[in-house]
């Protein structure tokens, strides 16, 4: 039993619904009690979808248990097949249905339905949403393609010299982070390289489209949370190479172009493919103030790793924390964290994330909807870079995260919550101006300084363990430091005092600590 206040991911069957909702001409029959239809609103409200997900819920009640639930499954299957006429009918249990063991998959296979059936096992009590999406996509692709598979060990015939090279974009889904726009951006990028996109899946694909997957020369593993399993099966079964660089950020986009060129054995001049404003914006002098800003990154695996690289190499931030809620991606994130000299935070307990942010006192948080709330409470600027995300993170405008335009978007999005260049300096100099002071918050952001103001009053006069006490004058001096660096100054000074065996912090201690830590 695990105490959970907020959850980063839904249950695995929500992952299955995401695949169904992303595609055309499929239907999912979910054996489930009343209430599980809440999943519909994730799509219709958060992503403003104009249709319900293609899901039929059996909706069993207590009085049905032990007698008629299996019958309800068969009836729902027949009605779904009849009413929606899908090309493929997927069948799964939600968490409660798993307990009553009606085996809807087996019932479906035995029901002589006029439509191909893909049974899914969702493992509700051990797995979560992204796993469910990956497993569903894999079962669907495998179910539709295994009959086409060449005998094991066959060589993949070389591409005809007269046909344009092509790839599949695998992984983008509904309720993914900016998948809609990333697909457009990457397709445009590939086209400009003379490469066709054969199939995009699951987003917008029909089962018939999936049948065409093996026609491409390679698979782009665009959202590994969803497509890893499928890409490796396609590599094993059809000998299709996987392109695994996530083109997020300027450098990674160039690496992606290079990997595509190598994989497809074509000549590409990376500099000629496209360009982003990010490198120049980051080098322009206004961005000097970004230097060494301490950022905390927490997201799904692929967005966390990509964001950390952009943060350090392309924005000039210092990455002080890196983590993910996704245990499936833990190994990759741990390896990435090592490169920044960090121990990765792998947890799906948001209280642990909050404690870490509080401890690190970063100047900026790049995270999910959860971290947005944590950061707001602590008065720290934040940008959302990953699911779970709320309705405002499904914007009307074109707003990719990937490719060269994606790099531009990242620059703008991450700079926006911060106090800008000279404003930051003026706040340092004249913090008592009654109209223009740090508790007002960034001047371009309206009321968003409120969290910081609330935080400001919470300053204690001693450390948590009571070992070090702030003298009145020192506390007063501390408050002259703008709020966005005050937490760091407080923490450093207290650490300095403890390390030097001091029990009281005087004004001089504050400046001694400042000198000690300024490097």
């Amino acid at each position, binding site marked *: 039993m695990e105490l959970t206040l907020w959850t980063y991911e839904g249950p695995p069957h929500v992952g299955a619904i995401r695949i169904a909702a992303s595609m055309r001409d499929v239907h999912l029959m979910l054996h489930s009690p009343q209430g599980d239809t809440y999943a519909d609103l994730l799509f219709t*409200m958060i992503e403003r979808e104009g249709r319900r997900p293609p899901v039929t819920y059996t909706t069993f009640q207590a009085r049905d248990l032990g007698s008629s639930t299996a019958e309800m499954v068969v009836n729902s299957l027949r*009605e779904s097949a009849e009413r929606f006429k899908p090309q493929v009918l997927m069948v799964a249990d939600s968490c409660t249905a798993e307990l009553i063991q009606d085996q809807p998959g087996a019932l479906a296979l035995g029901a002589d339905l006029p439509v191909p059936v893909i049974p899914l096992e969702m493992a509700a009590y051990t797995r979560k949403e992204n796993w469910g999406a990956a497993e569903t996509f894999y079962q669907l692709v495998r179910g539709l393609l295994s009959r086409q598979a060449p005998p094991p060990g066959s060589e993949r015939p070389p591409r005809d010299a007269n046909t344009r090279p092509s790839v599949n974009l695998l992984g983008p889904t509904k309720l993914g982070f900016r998948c809609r726009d990333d697909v457009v951006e990457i397709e445009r990028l590939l086209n400009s390289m003379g490469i066709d996109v054969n199939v995009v899946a699951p987003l917008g694909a029909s089962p018939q489209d999936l049948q065409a997957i093996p026609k491409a020369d390679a698979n782009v593993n665009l959202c590994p949370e969803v497509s890893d399993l499928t890409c490796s099966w396609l590599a094993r079964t059809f000998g299709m190479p996987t392109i695994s660089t996530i083109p997020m950020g300027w450098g990674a986009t160039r690496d992606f172009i290079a990997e595509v060129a190598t994989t497809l054995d074509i000549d590409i001049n990376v500099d000629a493919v496209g360009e982003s404003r990010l490198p120049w914006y980051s080098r322009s002098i206004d961005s000097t103030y970004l230097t060494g800003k301490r950022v905390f990154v927490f997201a799904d695996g692929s967005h966390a790793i990509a964001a950390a690289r952009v943060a350090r190499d392309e924005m000039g931030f210092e990455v002080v924390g890196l983590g993910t809620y996704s245990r499936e991606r833990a190994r990759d994130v741990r390896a990435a964290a090592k490169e920044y000299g960090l121990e990765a935070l792998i947890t799906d307990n948001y209280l642990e994330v909050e404690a870490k942010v509080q401890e690190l006192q970063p100047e900026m948080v790049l995270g999910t909807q959860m971290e947005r*709330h944590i950061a707001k409470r602590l008065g720290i600027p934040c940008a959302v870079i990953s699911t779970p995300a709320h309705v405002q993170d499904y914007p009307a405008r074109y707003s990719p995260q990937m490719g060269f335009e994606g790099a531009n978007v990242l620059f703008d999005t991450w700079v926006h919550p911060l106090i800008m260049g000279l404003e930051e300096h003026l706040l340092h100099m004249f913090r008592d101006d009654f109209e223009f002071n740090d508790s007002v918050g960034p001047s371009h952001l309206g009321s968003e300084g409120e969290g910081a103001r609330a935080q400001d009053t919470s300053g204690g006069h001693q450390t948590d363990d009571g070992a070090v006490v702030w003298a009145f004058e020192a506390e007063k001096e501390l408050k002259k430091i703008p709020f966005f660096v005050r937490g760091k100054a407080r923490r450093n000074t207290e650490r300095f005092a403890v390390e030097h065996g001091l029990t009281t912090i005087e004004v001089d201690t504050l400046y001694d600590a400042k000198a000690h830590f300024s490097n």
Partner: protein
Amino acid sequence: MSSVIASTVGEHHPGPQKQERGQRAVFCGLTSIIWLHRRIQDAFFLVVGSRTCAHLIQSAAGVMIFAEPRFATAILGERDLAGMADCHEELDRVVSELIARRPGINRLFLVGSCPSEVIKLDLETAAAKLQVKHENRVRISAFSGSGIETTFTQGEDQCLKSTVAELPTLGASEDNLIVLGTVSDIVEDQFRRLFDDLDIKNIHFYPGRKAGDLPAVGKGTRVIAAQPFVGETARALIDRDAELISAPFPLGAEGSKAWFEAAAEAYGVDSERTQQVLEMPYQRAKRAVSVHRSKLEGKRIHFLPDSQLEIPMARFLSEECDLSVNEIGTPFHDQLVMRGELARLPQDVPMVEGQDLDPALARVRAARPDLTVCGMGIANALESEGLRTKWSIELVFSPVQGFDQAGDLAGLFAKPLAREEILEVGSWS
């Protein structure tokens, strides 16, 4: 039903003419926690369930409530289900952790879910055991919000019903009035002022703002429902000798007036005095409703089953705003609490109990009403087909009861129609 004080006799709407079974697009009772945890300020709701339960509540709550919520989920894992971990011990550990973390909590509800019901986890016994351990610290009890037993607002009914046994017994010579069902703080304050003007004393709102605000109940207790989803609790109170005052719900100018009149009549308040007290707020409510009338009159409205508020809302809109009601869907029908409403509803309104989603949507598409009241999962799907909707959860989450909210209530229905007139982009039809 001698313990029910009937106020109106005559031709009633017969109630649902049709029962439907099939796929439902309605939340489960766990969703009630979203408003209950805000209403009862020192209570904590611990759902014993699955990740789905946790995800449902946070999604239905608009994903996030900024402050740390007073609800959580103890997520059952494989070890719990396989019997490798003793669920009672596990619960003991989780509850201790929780109580240590939230020192301000005086009341803990263990909330049963579909999985906990299916594995027959006895939360009442668990609560009793935990109570012994935390005797002087926090009051612990259990109720079920599972989807296999409850729909959406029924969670509140189960919660309240579970506390009825704890209510102290009212002294033989005393009397009091219990206003049953969550209302917002501002509505409570307005109602208290009016009851005071009517000289009706000893009013208790149940649930109250604090978990310890438990009214006494006994022979001198009268109960009036402020919400239509409290039937089981009303029955439990009747079992403890309370009398239920039959009235329509305090929605709209007419509903609010009839509601207060029924209470006043039960208390033997002089009717002239009653009219005198109610006249000003009643006229004010009518003026407020009339502002929205031009948008609403002559329109056709269709209710899909969701919150149990469908019948009173349909009554308000037909009685005060001249809408015609195409169909009322209700998750379940409770004659006991709906009597006062059915008496005021046009008798020819089609009413369906339960739901079979796809045929129900087909009827909406065929009728193309001007406004469809439905759950959040369906609203945008209908909008994209050119049908205007009002999502019903807003009716539960907004202060709509009483005279001074009557205008706001009409406004909730008028707004989607007004929006259609204002917008010059795209098209709904």
